[in-house]
């Protein structure tokens, strides 16, 4: 362990207001700490550039999964384990459940939080592609008030977000799918479990009158930020299901290879990420066509 324990301060507020007051009073001085599953790795290696932590774990206001007829709203401290075992999410938003299953080990899933996963800003995180596919929104709160930000605008650069230093994520909201819909999630990791993504792809589609009425494609590990593949989405959206043939799919794969901006790193190569993203998109579209034709 190379982290400097003696030099650390951990403050544990008991109310959300209390936490926001501290963030407001000393802007940028406190690092919010939720499950700690990302921070502790860097801390143990002695490379975490923070020593003052605002421990959010006791803030019950940030817990709980609430559902209305239109939406599911997840408290910032919702753990992967809670997502994994929620019946409505499993039934209607299966990509989220799959993302939670493939994030870290069981112990990580019991402790790690959804808001932490996105606030940490890693492009290789596994819930962001699903959140992007579902068009999620993020609620940010400070003493000045709260605002909803579309999650697709949340990340502004590698490990950078729209959050102000005095803000906390309080909730994440996802709209409940309607109509005839299709969900797809595939993580291509370095191994079957306890793996970090080399490519992660999540999609949501809705069909109406023989056409793809809605199509969103969230991608992880293929750019500095989790991203939507917008050109590819536009290509698919509005298409007649009948026309989604092999030739169309080949075109969509080429479009996706242009959409993403992967790099070489210690886990994989840019060329692998590009080709496998395209191949998995091919799998996705084939399954989607089969699914919608069956309906």
């Amino acid at each position, binding site marked *: 362990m190379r982290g400097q324990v003696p030099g650390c301060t951990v403050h544990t507020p008991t109310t959300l207001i209390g936490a926001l007051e501290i963030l407001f009073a000393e802007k940028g001085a406190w690092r919010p700490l939720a499950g700690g599953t990302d921070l502790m790795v860097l801390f143990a290696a002695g490379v975490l550039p923070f020593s003052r932590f605002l421990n959010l774990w006791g803030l019950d206001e940030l817990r709980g999964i609430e559902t209305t007829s239109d939406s599911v709203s997840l408290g910032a401290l919702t753990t992967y384990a809670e997502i994994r075992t929620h019946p409505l999410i499993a039934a209607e938003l299966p990509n989220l459940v799959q993302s939670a299953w493939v994030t870290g080990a069981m112990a990580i899933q019991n402790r790690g939080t959804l808001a932490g996963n996105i606030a940490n800003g890693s492009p290789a995180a596994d819930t962001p592609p699903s959140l992007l596919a579902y068009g999620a929104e993020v609620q940010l709160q400070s003493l000045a008030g709260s605002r909803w930000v579309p999650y697709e605008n949340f990340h502004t650069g590698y490990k950078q977000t729209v959050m102000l230093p005095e803000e906390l994520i309080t909730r994440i909201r996802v709209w409940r799918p309607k109509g005839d819909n299709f969900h797809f999630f595939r993580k291509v990791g370095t*191994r079957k*479990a306890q793996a970090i993504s080399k490519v992660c792809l999540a999609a949501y589609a809705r069909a109406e009158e023989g056409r793809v009425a809605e199509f969103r494609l969230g991608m992880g590990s293929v750019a500095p930020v989790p991203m939507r593949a917008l050109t590819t989405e536009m290509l698919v959206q509005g298409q007649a299901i009948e026309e989604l043939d092999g030739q169309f799919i080949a075109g969509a794969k080429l479009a996706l290879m242009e959409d993403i901006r992967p790099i070489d790193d210690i886990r994989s190569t840019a060329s692998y990420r590009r080709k*496998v993203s395209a191949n998995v998109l091919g799998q996705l579209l084939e399954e989607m066509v089969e699914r919608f034709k069956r309906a």
Partner: protein
Amino acid sequence: MNPSLHIGHSRIRKEGRAKVTGEAQYTDDVRMEYMLYGVTVRSSVPRGILKGIEFGEGIPWDEFVIVTAKDVPGELNVALIERDQPFLALDRINHPEEPVVLLAHADRYLLEKARAAVHLDIEPLPPLFDLEESLACKEVIWGQDNLFKKILIEKGDVDSVWAGAAHVVEGEYKTGSQEQLYIEPNGAIAVANAEAGVTVWGSLQCPYYVHTALKALFNLPDDKVRVIQMETGGGFGGKEDYPSLIAGHAALLSLKAGGRPVKIVYDREEDMVATTKRHPSRTRIRSAFDAEGRLLALDIDFALDGGAYLTLSPVVLSRGAIHAGGPYRCPNTSIRARAAATNTPPHGAFRGFGAPQSLFAIERHMDVAAAQMGMDPIALRKQNLLRMGDATATGQIIKENVDLPGLLDHALEKLDYSAKKENHRIHNASLGPIKKGLGFAIFMHGCGFTGSGESYLASVAGVEGRADGKVHVLAASTEMGQGANTILSQVVAEVLKVPLEYVEVVRPDTALVPDSGPTVASRTTMVVGKLVQEAAIGLRQTLIQSGFLKVPYDGEGFSSAVKQYIAKNDHLKAYSQYNTPPQIVWDDQLYKGDAYTTFAWACYAAEVAVDTRTFEVKVEDFVAFQEVGRVLNPTLAEGQIEGGVAQGIGYGLSEQVVWSKGRMANGQMTNYIMATSMDIPRIRVYFEENPYPNGPGGAKGLGELPMDGPAPALLNAVQDALGTSAPREIPLTPERLMDLLDLMDFLEPSNV
């Protein structure tokens, strides 16, 4: 066969209860009064000249114990095969993790700040990272020609064959490095002072290796150095030579601290990045066959990357070279083997010790050759497998009745080879993205030390009767998770015909146990087991001759005989020393003769599914069929095989050490891709028992064997699945497989 009391029965591990209840004491569990913590400041450049050491501001340096090369009282270099690796760099830096300064302090947090505040002034020299560049002497970084060792094995005349052969098949094969990834990192605690000498407690495989190195380092006689093994959480070779270094470091700090105990325990990253790993290899094979597929000649060039210092490279090379010809009869063989230096941390021992590298090459080559000749790989093997009376590459005549074609048939039968083959043919003809394939490898592993190693070691082990009526086993063989305690106890309890609880294995401590050699080379059961068996026979005879023990007897009777004997004679000990079995002859100069007293034999067969969208290879089924003499403890033996196969699957498919300027860039378990239980199928283990007369209870060695077969079996299965012999390098990561298939598309677009 007589019904036996313990041999052949699964017995619970002697130390199992202490391990699962947490009572077992590992090095990091120990805290001593006045103990300091030690850390190592390492070079960050791969090669250069050390010009100066600066101690930065903001650290109370006067509170620290600081050791550099100048503080070494005796031999600066580690005493192993050669003395070329310094405990601490004096002026030359030869790899990016070279230890330069040692620091100790009671406050481990302050210690970390201090470690970061030491600045090394190093004038860089051009480094060498590539094995071929080292062989070509692009720079000379070690000795005259960068070569740690050269070996030539010659039989017949290969050059007389090429022109007349029906088929000549050539191939080049590469294997990567591999990290042992034992669960407990390297660690040691030392107490050293001028009067009492040096005592070290540590996580280690070979107490007497550390003993030898410390004697030289401190210039002390035998009895002033004591090495004690703590409970050890895995070794796999990674704690064979490295503990000498870390024990020496802790002891140097303790000496300078006036005898206060000093503990050094590496964290995972330091352990992965700085300590030894498996040697990367490159093998070129040129082979000739007649029209029926009979092997006429094998010309093999085998090269190992040894890293910056010699460590164990000559013996790793030796085992690799001897195994390079595989289990085949071949009248003309030439094996040229070289181990060369590069500016990476030294590579060292790892389960298999050179054999997994060269066996990967030959077993992969046999399938490449079969494809090129249009032959079935099974038929090709059967034409050439060694039988009793045949000679190996070194001219060793196989004297045991080994049935390799039978082993091959049994393994394939267990895999359900024929039925699966037919199913795959239909499955792969469809347009689906998953392609399935079957592959196998047939191989051997020499048991015990190579050549004259065992007779040179002349190991001693013993047994001792105790005043409480129990018998203690005295051996330097260490328990590191493999089951040595249990096996040695079973062998002794079998001889004495007493319950297992009457036998205890003494914790290896150089002050208490004789030098029974290092715990390596699949030798503990077969060689040391035989010694304790003989010693136990001697002890039993002494008791009978003294009249205290009357046959027949029960446990109680035995125990009371021991007590009575000791009451009268003070002590009851019996020792045995290694003798080479008769008719074993080895020539170290010519590399001819009996390279090993015996071999364990195996055939491993695998089924894979390749996802052509992601290029991932999934192992669907795995059969490990082997002949290891007699199995002494089925549960432990199966466990050894399963663990070795899991390690072998990782070696073949995913465990890639990513190098960056001579340094491991992925020194975290997150990024070094060892297989998890999700990545491994049920491993189906079978033994064919063929008792070996010179092993205790008929046993041979089996610890390393399972490391040799998985990688070639898996890649042969990938060849079968994809219909291409292109994969010739491990680990076969998805990235590597994609690049190979892309290259083939480029070269031969019609095959797509």
